């Protein structure tokens, strides 16, 4: 489960939908991607989970050939996406974070255009377009102009445009940002069905629940680095069995540090602005911390005990919460 240990050896790369090997990229002096490595297998949904600015979109841009990595490589079925032939890009479908559609055209015109651009022609085009629209639940709204559709429906057209050519690898960059729960569930169902059909899916998100719900494996990223990779169960184990205690009130950092140092099995994960988080090794350590807090005379306004999950793992790995 160490971040760099999951990369396929070169001879296997041609069969693996996506191999990302130690890619790095900086915008000026800001390092956006700093040695990211992972692979996505056929039929698998791999999630890149991290806060905004963690480097997820830059990673997708490098994979899809929009940005050349400073070092390392991203291989789609053994080929770099930036290659002149475009052969690897033809096997890839990308759902960008923004709604990248032509608002003046209808949903079906948009999907038809992207289908043609990916080389679908003649008699094969219309069935492919209808299928993509049906999968996105847009069969009855196909002739409406995109500008007239709601945000959720636009997101679905955005997805249909990436599915029309039946790609082997699907890259989804936060495809559910800013939409209602119903539309979100529909999109997640479509993504799951794509994986069931054998497609490899790379899914980036900063929504923990989404990642837990659909991803077979997850890579947790922050500041351009992959901090941990594994299945949801593996990552939860990595988070430990003990709970995380969050508290808010009039609390001094020095007192909290002294408390964490004194109590066995308790560590201070972080504190700022009248809020702090502790990790407890087990239930006994958790009880000791809570008892000590009330006896210390500190004015605690709110106290919350969280069972180990991806949120607590992220907190343990980065010292801060992954906020939606």
């Amino acid at each position, binding site marked *: 489960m160490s971040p760099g240990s999951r990369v396929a050896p070169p001879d296997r790369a041609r069969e693996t939908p996506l191999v990302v090997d130690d890619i790095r990229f900086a915008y000026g002096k800001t390092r956006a991607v700093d040695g990211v490595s992972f692979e996505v297998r056929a039929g698998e949904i791999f999630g890149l989970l991290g806060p905004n600015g963690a480097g997820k979109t830059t990673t997708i*841009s490098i994979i*899809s*050939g*929009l*940005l*050349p990595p400073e070092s390392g490589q991203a291989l789609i079925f053994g080929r770099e*996406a930036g290659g*002149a*032939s*475009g*052969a690897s*890009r*033809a096997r*890839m479908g*990308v759902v*960008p*974070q*923004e*709604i*990248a*559609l*032509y*608002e*003046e*055209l209808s949903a079906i*015109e948009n999907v038809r*255009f*992207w289908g*043609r*651009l*990916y*080389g679908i022609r003649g008699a094969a085009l219309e069935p492919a377009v209808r299928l993509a629209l049906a999968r996105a639940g847009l069969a009855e709204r196909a002739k409406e*102009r995109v500008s007239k559709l709601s945000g959720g429906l636009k997101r679905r057209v955005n997805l249909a*445009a990436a599915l029309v050519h039946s790609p082997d690898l699907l890259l989804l960059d936060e495809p559910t940002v800013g939409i209602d729960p119903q539309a979100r569930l529909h999109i997640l169902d479509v993504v799951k069905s794509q994986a069931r059909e054998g497609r490899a899916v790379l899914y980036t998100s900063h929504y923990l629940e989404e990642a837990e719900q659909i991803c077979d494996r997850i890579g947790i990223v922050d500041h351009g680095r992959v901090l941990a990779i594994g299945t949801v169960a593996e990552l939860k184990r990595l988070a430990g069995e003990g709970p995380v205690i969050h508290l808010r009130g009039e609390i001094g950092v020095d007192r909290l540090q002294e408390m964490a140092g004194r109590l066995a099995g308790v560590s201070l994960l972080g504190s700022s602005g009248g809020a702090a988080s502790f990790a407890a090794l087990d239930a006994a350590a958790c009880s000791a911390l809570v008892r000590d807090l009330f006896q210390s005379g500190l004015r605690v306004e709110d106290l919350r005990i969280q069972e180990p999950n991806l949120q607590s793992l992220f907190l343990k790995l980065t010292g801060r919460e992954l906020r939606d």
Partner: protein
Amino acid sequence: MRRRVRTILLLTLKDLRRRLADRLALALNLAIPLAIAGTMALVFGSRPGEEPQAPKLRLVVADLDGTPATGIITGASQNQEAAKHLDVSVAATREEGLSHMRDEHFAALVVIPKGFSDAMLSGRQATFEVVKNPAESVMPLVAEQGAGIAALYLSTGRRLLGDDSKTLAAMLQGDDWQDSAAIAALATTMYARVHGAGNWLFPPIIGVKTEQKAAGGTNGFNFIAWMYPGLIVMGLLYVALMQMRDLLRERRSGTLRRQLVAPVSVAEVLLSKLLAVAAVVAVSMVLLLAAGALAFHIDWGAPLPLLATAAAIVFTTTGFAALLYSLVTTERQGEAFGGILVMVMSLLGGSFVPPQVLPGWLQSISRFTVSHWAHDALRWIVAGGGWSDIAQDLLVLAVLGATFIGIGWAGLSRRYARGAL
């Protein structure tokens, strides 16, 4: 190769379909140059079915001499033929004339000083003054040139009269005015002198043949026909810029990046964008040429030179737009810089005033603008010019267009390589 051509066509048609889908925006886009031309036509009074006329030369004359000879000048506009082209207002003093010129927007003030007739007829140096109105554009220059011609004619006339000018001066001053015999004798002498000079002067060795291209079947000066080519070029530059702005709009919406992650090269994307812009500019040009012919009776001459000129203008204006949008990073920057540049180029290139009236150094700069060469070519076309007249214009336009597209292409490709497209 076939795949490339198919992809470029697909991307180009997509843009054209988007334009057609938003018909109102397209109509407004195409209407801009037509609206400018229509407004100009209204301003300068040339309407369909009307005989176009040159604007009148409006003069204030301060006749401080007040003799019958100078009265001929002040009364010039009473002549029916002269009144078509001349509007003369009389002032009693120089100051009154200046005030009148300023307030009533006359092109110039002509001051005839006291003793002018006397000096002229007695063979001394005689001078009259022309004060040009700086607030007017072209007509003060016409007044100045007209005054120069008038001075030349008066000098020649005076020399033809010779010693008889003294008799004529005395008659004009009222002495011997009743002497019919003297008048007859003077007339006979003057006729003989003029007739004698005529043997030397006529027929002139060098002649001028003036051909007026028919504008709606009339022989009058069609001001809008002179101005319209400049408006076409200005309008097309605006249309090209507005169309090329779509590149940044696509970047903002993410569709450009989405195209670039498809099996499409950046060259295919850029070329298709240029073709789509050129297509809309070409349609605009056809509409503007048709509007010029139908509404303003402009004769666009032979079809092939016109076609070549139109193609060169479409190519260069599209290149100009590509260059500009390779330099700016936001749509607002494009609108602001584009608007300013088009206006400056139109002013320097002769859309509003002939480049010849500009100072020399501005005329030199003018030659580096698209407008200058495009106007020149179109005006030659309107004047009935042929290939030899427009060859230089077409060559310069082609070189300018290719240079613009080359630099623009390099800039946009560099932006793509940086991941900033």
